[in-house]
């Protein structure tokens, strides 16, 4: 079973296998059931989801590799467009990227058992707890 990383540590996946596949089943957001969990590819632009925002409770964005940063940009854009539900990054993200993912608007990261073994909870917690404030925050706030 997959492990979910949150600010408070590892938790079990409460949503396993519930995600609808956007590319196969859910292309019309108006057809989604309320409270839907949807998995989207990182190649979406984001706008296509807007009509379904009130129906989507949970989105999962796939990272095909930990060096493919499209998911970060997509997460940011979804938040800008007003998506307020849960946002999960899944795939091969490393502990060192956890803070980045959180700053781009993700709530949690899903990792497989093999990675959870090599990068145990303590490594992720350390990366979260030892973060410094960001330049971006300093530059964007009010003068």
């Amino acid at each position, binding site marked *: 079973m997959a492990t979910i990383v949150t600010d408070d540590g590892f938790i079990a996946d409460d949503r396993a296998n519930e995600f609808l596949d956007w590319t196969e089943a859910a292309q019309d957001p108006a057809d989604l059931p309320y409270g839907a969990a949807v998995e989207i590819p990182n190649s979406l632009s984001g706008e296509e989801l807007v009509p379904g925002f009130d129906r989507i409770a949970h989105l999962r964005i796939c990272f095909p590799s930990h060096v*493919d*940063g499209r998911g970060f940009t997509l997460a940011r854009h979804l938040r800008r467009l007003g998506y307020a539900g849960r946002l999960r990054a899944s795939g091969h993200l*490393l502990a060192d990227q956890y803070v*980045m993912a959180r700053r781009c608007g993700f709530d949690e990261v899903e990792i497989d058992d093999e990675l959870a073994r090599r990068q145990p909870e303590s490594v992720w917690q350390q990366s979260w707890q030892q973060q*410094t404030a960001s330049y971006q925050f*300093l*530059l*964007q706030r009010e*003068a």
Partner: protein
Amino acid sequence: MYLYSEFDRTYVRNRVRMFRDQVDRRIDGSLSEEEFKPFRLMNGLYLQLHAYMLRVAIPYGTLDSRRLRQLAFIADRWDRGYGHFTTRQNIQFNWPRLKDVPDILDALADVDMHAIQTSGNCIRNVTADHFAGAAADELSDPRPVAELIRQWSTDHPEFTFLPRKFKIAVTGSPNDRAVTRAHDIGLRMVHSKEGQNGFEVIVGGGLGRTPVIGKVIREHLPEADLLPYLEAILHVYNAIGRRDNKYKARIKITVRETGIDAFRSRVEERFRIIRKEFLGADQQVIRRIRDTFAEPDYVQAPTAAFDDALRRDPAFRDFANGNVHRHKNPDYGIVSVSLKAHGRTPGDASSKQMRILADLAEAYGHDELRISHEQNVILPHVHRKDIPAVFAELSRGGLGTPNVGLASDIIACPGMDYCALATARSIPVARDIAVRLREIERDVGSLKIKISGCINACGHHHVGHIGILGLDRAGVENYQITLGGDATETAALGDRAGPGFPADELVPAIERLALTYLDIREDQDESFLETYRRTGLAPFQAALYPDAVPKGRGGHPERSNDAVS
């Protein structure tokens, strides 16, 4: 120059600590090399042909004596007593050991320096005009802008895993010394018709295997819109830039495939949303940064010593004509120190030379130094009365070569001597050309020769008046020549002259080009580039290939063209 805030200091120390931890995890195996790679690259650590190489950022090329002495210390303590200045205003150490790198980074942090984002697919060290703050033709000092961008781009959570590396350059002068048209984003500080400060924003330039001159995406961007506009460009690029082929992943390809107009409208659309998120602190920050770039406390004194030396000393005359540029204060000069002594490796400086330069900056140069993308060191503020003394001390340290801007002031990438990607040597070629042209280079005048050891073009050969590209032809080095390239505000890519030359025929071929120019120039005031633009390729081709069969009657079978894409 810019002083680190408490925030900068804490930030950089924290990064060193994180990297120390990553190195430990790499050494104990909990990070695989593949996983470790992006993190070491984010901290400037490359794996090269023979060893690791650490690339240290010199933001917008600005240093003071304290920092340069620390670089000398690092070279002695953890490397082989020298460093190599690159075409992107960085310094590279070629022989550090992995386990020492965190200590080196701590030593850099001691003097407010770092190696962050000098590598990897992120926004790289921002470069700026090396005469910034001193040049007579400057509208506005570009360094505060570059520093603002450094801060904004540092560890940007959205832009640390881009399709490819991303380079930004800024100039504040109409004469572009920062090659803004060959960067992913180039910024030229301009005044609008109404006199408002802003930027001309150029996007999608770059050299490499597909050289492209950048296109203007915004003619006049108001100053306060800079960061949200940059963010919009990066946002679009990160979303749609190609990831299927690393040779098509730079933004120049994205812009070409999307079309500049379609790309612009996507950026503008994103910009409208992102602009609202910048609530004003960035403008406060840049004001604070500007205060730290105050003008030096100029000395008022007669300049007679300079004029005396000019009259008396022909060696000094050569130096003053080539290596001293106009300062905005007429009593001052900008002194360029050549790291291109004939027969030496372009861009290398020993720790001893670094200390000499640091001493000179302190004694005569308001404690400021610059590193240029042409791989030279600059003392930007020297009173004219002191230039003879500076020249004398430079000469004693082997740093007085009066060849700035001349044929031997060659840009060369590390090539086969260090670089794992190289297809040919470039450093030895540069040395040989410099030695061969020594006798005539003063007569030839301004001539920019640039050499790359493979098609990645780190030596900027496409924009050299004479560009040289080293290739591998069935195991033998072969050098292709391009002519007429230009890195300035009149940017142009060089034209392929014809078939390449084997290593032993290259140097005489370059000499023939120089001699041909001397023959056919209209007068002494017509530069190599101007002559080339007037005459075109033909007379130079004739000099390069004296035995060539005229066009249309078949060619040399063994000199068939190499396709370069």
